[in-house]
Structure formats: C-alpha cells, structure tokens
C-alpha cells in the first residue's frame, strides 16, 4: 500500500454524539448533528463538503437500500464522491480509508464519514441478522442465530482449545468499565468486578449479560480533507501510518477456525504498510461487542500470542495503566454501541492523538490504533494513526 499517496489526505475533525437514548429522534437528525459537530471541530462548514460516506440501511439506521442518497438528500448536499460500503461494525473505518484514497486521487477535497443509528426505538427496517433462509443462509438461519450466539461460538472454542476461563473473559468488560467511569457520556459508569460479570444472567453461553455490549442510540462523524488544506484548520491533522482490511464469511458454518478473527489478515496488512509493530502502539481501540472480541484482536494483531489472550487480559495489560491500554472511552461494552461501533473506535483513536479523550487520556500518545470488526467475525479493518 502506498502510504505516501494516502497521506495526501488528513483527518481533521471528529464528533461523537453524547446521545445514548434518543426516544423519538430520527437517525438522520443525529447524522446531521454529528456531521455539523465534526465540521465545526475541524473549522469547516457544509459548504466545504464534496464527499459523503455513510451506512444507513441496517437496523435502526433510518435509511434503506440506497442509503447514501437518502442521507445526502436529507442533509441537503450533492457530493461528487460517495461510498456506502457496508461490512458491518467496522464500516466507518473501511470508509475512512476509501475517503482518503478518493482525496489522494482527486475525486474529492473534503469528505465526511458518518454513522448514526437508533436501535433502541426505531420502528422500521431490517431486524433479521445477516442473511436469508435461502441459498447460503438456508443452512444457517433456520437454527436461530444471533450475533451474541455467533460470538459465543468463538469464545467457547477459545476456552476449549486454550483453557481460557470465564474469569479471564470478564477481565475485559471490567477494565473497560473503569475507563467508562471517567466518561460523562458513557451509558454505564458504575465500576464492576469479575464477580459482577459472572453473576449477571447468562444470555448465550459463555456470555453473561455483562460480556455483551450496551445498546444505544447515537452517532459519530469524522472529516477528511487534502493535506495542503488541512494545515490551516483548527486541529492538528492526523495521518494514516498504515491500513489493512479483510473479509471472511457471514455464515458461521463457513468459519475456518473459531479461535481466529479476520484481524489476523487486516492487522499485518496495516503494520506492514506502516513499517511498525505492535510494540510501537501507545493505545489501541479494539472493537468490543463482546468480551471475546478484543481478546481475539490482541492475539491476531500480535499484542500477545495466539491462545494467550486470556492470561494477557487478566494480567492488567489492557487497563489504562497497562502496557497496551484499550478502549479508553469505555468502549462498546460500557459507553456506546448502536450497532456499528467502528465509528467510535476510530473517533477515540483520533481523540487520543488530540488529547481529547472523554475517558482515560493516555499521556504522550504518538501512535494510535483503531481496529474494527464487522458481522459475525466477518470483516476487519485496522488503522494506525499519528499526528502529521
């Protein structure tokens, strides 16, 4: 990957909605709020925007199939570049890479990547997961799969194969809740213990309720522009040091290895592009829909060896004072998860570089990592970021 070319684009602003419960607010209203917020953060306005990347056709997102058109129309803009690549939770990170590539080759000057969803209340749109009971999904959907069960299958196999314990899994939500306690916008702020996680109701084994993310109504946006334009703006421009993405499968019966995530592909792609290793990363935002998700990411990105993730998270390495702090805003497990948390993973990675984390700000953050997962362990995107 030509990172020199990609660095013609810079990320110059970001905004995460403080909303967590939106009652009767249309997701498109939140799209507008966070885009305006991110543009204001950068020192730009809607008049500058000529590119728009969104996903808005999934659960609670307010749109349908031609989602990027619906959102552009509601906003009242006519972008000359657009993208609506939807690979689930990591889509916003994937789209941010596409936005940078578009800027680098002149398809746009200033691109907004945005996401909003109100799954807590939104009354229409898809509710079924992933696929249909015909063709590839005919041998999966009739069995009643949910995302909780899909990731539970990964955790169960990891426990069987490597001896990972429920207590070790619980160390993940416990560490992340401690970060959320500092974030005024986090949905869940009260500290929890391993015992609290293990005594919460079993949802789909081995996941207790507190192994699972919160469900919120919220949104977020980031703004990218040309590097030469970025110099005059409000924030220190952020550049991509490296990027990688991968897709595998959405039908869980096609999983090659239940102890491996697609991060095993996206991570090395990102680190190789950057010429960096995990030891160079100061803080990592790792998509946390479930306790197993960041544990697999730590292994597959190379922060610890395969099979040692349980001991690694239980050692305290992932806490704010540990060797690799993760999910410093409180993550999806405690702060914000409307459905595609990748946007907030990216925003918190950026805020760490700007010194603006609402949770636990790391001192001297030079290299920040954003890692998203999508679908049923189906897609991954890994982005390494630094100040220009």
């Amino acid at each position, binding site marked *: 990957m030509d990172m020199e070319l990609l660095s013609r684009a810079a990320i110059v602003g970001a905004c995460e909605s403080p909303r967590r419960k939106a009652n009767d607010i249309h997701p498109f209203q939140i799209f507008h709020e966070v885009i305006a917020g991110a543009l204001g953060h950068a020192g730009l306005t809607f008049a500058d925007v000529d590119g728009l990347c969104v996903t808005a056709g999934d659960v609670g997102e307010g749109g349908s199939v031609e989602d990027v058109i619906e959102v552009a129309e509601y906003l009242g803009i006519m972008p000359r570049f657009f993208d609506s690549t939807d690979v689930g939770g990591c889509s916003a990170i994937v789209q941010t890479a596409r936005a940078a590539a578009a800027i680098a080759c002149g398809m746009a000057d200033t691109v907004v990547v945005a996401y909003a969803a109100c799954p807590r209340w939104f009354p229409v749109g898809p*509710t*079924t997961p992933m696929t*249909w*009971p*015909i*063709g*590839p*999904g*005919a*041998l*999966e*959907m*009739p*069995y*009643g*799969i*949910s995302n*909780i*069960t899909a990731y*539970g*299958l*990964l955790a*169960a*196999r990891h426990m*069987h194969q490597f001896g990972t314990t429920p207590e070790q899994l619980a160390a993940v939500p416990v560490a992340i809740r401690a970060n959320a306690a500092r974030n005024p916008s986090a949905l869940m702020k009260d500290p929890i213990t391993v015992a609290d996680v293990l005594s919460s*109701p*079993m*949802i*789909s*084994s*081995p*996941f207790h309720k507190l192994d699972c993310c919160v469900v919120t109504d919220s949104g977020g946006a980031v703004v990218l522009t040309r590097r030469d334009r970025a110099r005059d703006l409000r924030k220190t421009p952020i550049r991509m040091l490296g990027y990688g993405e991968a897709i595998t499968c959405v*039908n*869980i*019966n*096609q*999983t090659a290895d*239940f102890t491996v995530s697609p991060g095993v592909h996206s991570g090395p792609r990102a680190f190789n592009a950057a010429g960096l290793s995990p030891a160079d990363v100061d803080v990592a935002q790792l998509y946390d829909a479930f306790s197993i998700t960041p544990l697999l990411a730590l292994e597959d990105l190379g922060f610890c060896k395969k099979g040692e993730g349980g001991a690694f998270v239980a050692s305290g390495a992932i806490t704010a004072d540990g060797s690799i702090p993760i999910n410093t805003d409180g993550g999806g497990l405690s702060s914000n998860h409307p459905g595609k948390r990748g946007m907030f993973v990216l925003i918190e990675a950026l805020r760490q570089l700007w010194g603006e984390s609402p949770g636990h700000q790391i001192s001297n953050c030079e290299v920040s990592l954003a890692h998203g997962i999508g679908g049923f362990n189906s897609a991954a995107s890994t982005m390494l970021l630094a100040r220009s």
Partner: protein
Amino acid sequence: MDRPLPIPCAHDKEFWEAVSQDRLVVQKTAAGHWQSYPRAHALDDPMTRDTAPRFEPVAGTGTIETFSVVHRSFYPAIQAPYVFAVVRLDEGVCMTAHIVDAEPSEVGIGDPVRATFVEIAPGQKLPCFKLNKAGSVA
C-alpha cells in the same frame, strides 16, 4: 421474529429432498473434495462449469466443533434454552446445527454426534444432531 424456514433453490433442491427423507447428503467435487453448504459450482474448480459437484450420501456422524447454549431466544418459535452448534462431519466440512435430545449441561466440544431430522414446521424437516455416546443404543 418468526423462525426462518429454508426455501430450496435449483442448486440445493436435492439436499432438501434428501432431508425430507431423513437422509443427509453432502456435495463432492470431481476432484474428490467435500463442500458444504451446497453451491452450483465446485469451490476447488470455480472456472469449469461441466464439473458441477454431486450430492453423495454421508454417514451423518461428526463431532461438535463449538456450541453455545442460547438462554435468551430472539425467535419465539425456538424455545430457550437450545444448543446452537457447529458440527464438523467426519468428511471434514462443517454444518450449523442444534444438538437435540440432550440436556445442555451434557454437551461438550469434541463430543461425537450423529444426524437426526427434526420437523420444525408441518412437512419441513431440518438436519440436527444428537449425542452419539459410545455404547449408547439408537
């Protein structure tokens, strides 16, 4: 959410016909590789149209690759708790499955299982598996 029922297509009709007769078939390619779920093409020879994989009977035995006991069902037609599993057939391919006729606490990864066919709606059967414990009868 209602329980989704499988809808056959041209390329997997033979599979569902077999299931309706309590038989499990899996596709085998011309090169001898098993593949599942059914496809109209061979995964090991995707450019050649005249070597479509053929369905062949299998013993229906395998082991539990992984499983999750679902305590909160999102599908009212599927009563919790149920054991959602992925079974690796002895032929090497994986199938999504329920482990039926067993207490969830009896089920373990690596346990041997064999196919059984469960009627999930009038006239609609679905391949599932039950524990195939050594020494057990039928």
